[in-house]
């Protein structure tokens, strides 16, 4: 799906680039692609409609029309607007209240409230806060036990509640306890509930009134689909939400729910969950989320950099060669390394890749990678043009000469040749199975990958 989308958007850029100017019609085409991309990413339909209307207006604005590259300008607008909608750069927790500062957790069943409570507690403990974890989930079997276990693992205080108590009583008693024991922060975990469950929604409204929390966090599963708007609206109407936590982003869902929930509640996304472990909580990056939803990585800056630094003809020649499955020789290999370096090296490249790809390739160590790139270049430079085209020629004596010329060991030359062979295989795979398959195959085989 990712490949389709990136491809489709690139197609839009291409067609638009060919046009001397933007017309009502080709903007319409572009908007249809964007609409499709957003829906595939699970952005809710009404949100998509609003967004498209807004972007279209801007795309017809003067800055786009006067741009030399209107196609790119349109994509730029889409991306910028998406990032803008995603909100400010990682809005921090607000704990400015008379202690204990209370954080109330709310959300659907299984969205990740309890795990996130523990993750937050860990984060605050690192900031030297005295934290109390409290569970008022008297419904789900062993929910309180779950929070207690996590608290014990982390060495954080956990209020002693049990399933026979009323959530309201737990709230009152825990508040009293936290005051008497001078806790800086109290994180209050609640049971998962459906937005249409009136009794349960009334319960959490009561809990909110009792606790008067400074933060009320709505915990959303990144895999959630269209219903995110309904759920978000209902929770937002019941509770004065102050922030959103988006969980399970370590999966491969595109996470369009983030946009739906943002749009409906207007609240900032404060954190994202990136693992089931207690250290798997990260600040939110609107840019990255926008790219992820569009499934395109930071394609914009990639395009920009590519145009600035890369010999387009050279890149195209290689791409064609790869696509046609023609033999990929050491000269091509070297060229590719060169292009990579021109684009800022491995680290910079990884940063801009579509999130899913980058995730898959997250075993790359950019520094080692860049060093390896330079060494590879050195070795290939020591070869004759003929050797580069026909690596089969490279027998022991030639290898020794090359190693001496590049100031490396013969093993290094051998390793390079092995890598090259792998690369050749990958290129074949690429022409057959696409990028994702290639990335999977790359793990452990590319310089710098562990």
């Amino acid at each position, binding site marked *: *799906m990712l490949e389709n989308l990136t491809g489709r958007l690139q197609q839009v850029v291409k067609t638009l680039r060919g046009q001397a100017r933007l017309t009502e019609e080709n903007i319409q085409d572009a908007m249809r692609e964007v609409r*499709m991309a957003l*829906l*595939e*990413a*699970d952005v*809710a*339909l*009404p949100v998509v409609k609003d967004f498209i209307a807004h972007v279209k207006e801007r795309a017809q604005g003067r800055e786009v029309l006067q741009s030399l590259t209107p196609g790119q300008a349109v994509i730029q607008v889409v991306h910028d607007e998406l990032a803008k909608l995603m909100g400010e750069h990682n809005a921090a927790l607000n704990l400015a209240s008379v202690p204990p500062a209370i954080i109330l957790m709310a959300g*659907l*069943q*299984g*969205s*990740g409230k309890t795990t996130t409570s523990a993750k937050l507690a860990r984060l605050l403990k690192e900031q030297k806060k005295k934290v109390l974890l409290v569970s008022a989930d008297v*419904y*789900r*079997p*062993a*929910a309180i*036990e*779950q*929070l*207690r*276990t*996590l608290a014990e*693992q982390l060495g954080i205080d956990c209020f002693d509640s049990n399933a026979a108590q009323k959530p309201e009583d737990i709230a009152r008693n825990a508040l009293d306890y936290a005051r008497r024991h001078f806790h800086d922060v109290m994180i209050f975990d609640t049971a998962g509930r*459906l*937005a*249409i469950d009136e009794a349960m929604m009334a319960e959490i409204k009561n809990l909110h009134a009792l606790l008067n929390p400074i933060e009320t966090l709505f915990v959303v*599963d990144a*895999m*959630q*689909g*269209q*219903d995110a*708007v*309904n*759920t978000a*609206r*209902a929770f937002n109407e019941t509770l004065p939400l102050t922030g959103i936590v988006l969980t*399970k982003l*370590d*999966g*491969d*869902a*595109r996470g*369009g*729910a983030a946009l739906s929930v943002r749009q409906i509640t207007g609240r900032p996304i404060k954190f994202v969950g990136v693992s*089931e472990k207690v250290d798997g909580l990260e600040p939110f990056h609107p840019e990255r989320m926008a790219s992820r939803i569009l499934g395109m990585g930071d394609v914009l800056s990639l395009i920009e950099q590519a145009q600035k630094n890369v010999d387009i003809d050279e890149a195209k020649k290689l791409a064609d060669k790869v696509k046609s499955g023609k033999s990929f020789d050491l000269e091509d290999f070297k060229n590719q390394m060169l292009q990579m370096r021109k684009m800022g090296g491995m680290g910079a490249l990884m940063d801009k890749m579509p999130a899913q790809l980058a*995730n*898959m390739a997250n075993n790359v160590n950019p520094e080692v990678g860049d060093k390896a790139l330079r060494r590879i270049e050195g070795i290939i430079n020591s070869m004759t043009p003929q050797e580069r085209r026909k690596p089969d020629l490279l027998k022991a004596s030639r290898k020794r000469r090359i190693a001496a010329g590049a100031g490396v060991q013969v093993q290094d030359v051998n390793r390079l040749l092995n890598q090259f062979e792998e690369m050749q295989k990958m290129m074949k795979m690429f022409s057959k199975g696409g990028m994702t398959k290639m990335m999977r195959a790359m793990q452990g085989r590319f310089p710098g990958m562990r």
Partner: protein
Amino acid sequence: MLNFFKKNKDESPSPEPKASWAERLKQGLTRTRTQLGNQLGGLFGGGKIDEEVYEELESILLTADVGVGATQALLEQVRTTVKRQHLTDTTQLREALQQALIGLLEPLAQPLDTGTHKPYVIMLAGVNGAGKTTTIGKLAWRLQAEGKSVLIAAGDTFRAAAREQLAEWGERNQVQVISQTGGDPAAVIFDAVNAAKARGIDVVLADTAGRLPTQLNLMEEIRKVKRVIDKAYPGAPHEILLVLDANTGQNAIAQVKAFDDALGVTGLALTKLDGTARGGVIAAIAKERPIPIRFIGVGEQLDDLQPFDAKEFVEALFS
């Protein structure tokens, strides 16, 4: 004594609950729909078929998570029907779309038959928080109501208090739960299958930890669990039940593919259909990876698991 219990059970409420869940839903759904400004205008009133009506249908499908691809395919199919059968009325149009959906889902409405092996081993799998453990609790209740004896294996040795959670479901069902503290998931389930064989138990329900398909090591781990079960009892597990959360959007398709590629999924359970989410992605799944849909989850109580009924499901999608 045993007979006494059995008799009691027969008199307890049947697994088919009180009101249909579709009925229960209607109220809440109508409200959210209205809020959404998404009222179904011409479609329900009857009237002429025009592009606007198709757009309305498209909205219904898209907002139910059917997805762009499957929605377009279904609408194409309906356009053909309209032409071929010379349909003119929007009520007929809606009917045609429902039929197209039912046609897609009906063949997958295959109930689970646990009578083919003894013990019949069911392994549950799915992403984090989908409802695996709860579904085991409900399944145990259903199976016992059918007169089967059940044993549960606590194969989630990772998540905090997963064992305790399952233990409570065991208690509610008065069913034994085999577990180890911090043990290896494969080993726990291996033991349970052997215990079931020794005791002549009818069905083993094996829980596993939630995992995302991107966690390649965990996907490998669950493959190992399956292999080890086969060692305890060649041919087992007999059912690999993938649990999907109806709230999930298009990623559910990727989940089905990944788990199916890793394990060979034999059945699906769609949970949390008692909320406002419609689970329409199951239609896209039916197109791309047709796998029998066994159950739907409609609540958090023992009796909130029902066999999948295509017609009822499609009706709820349009309610």
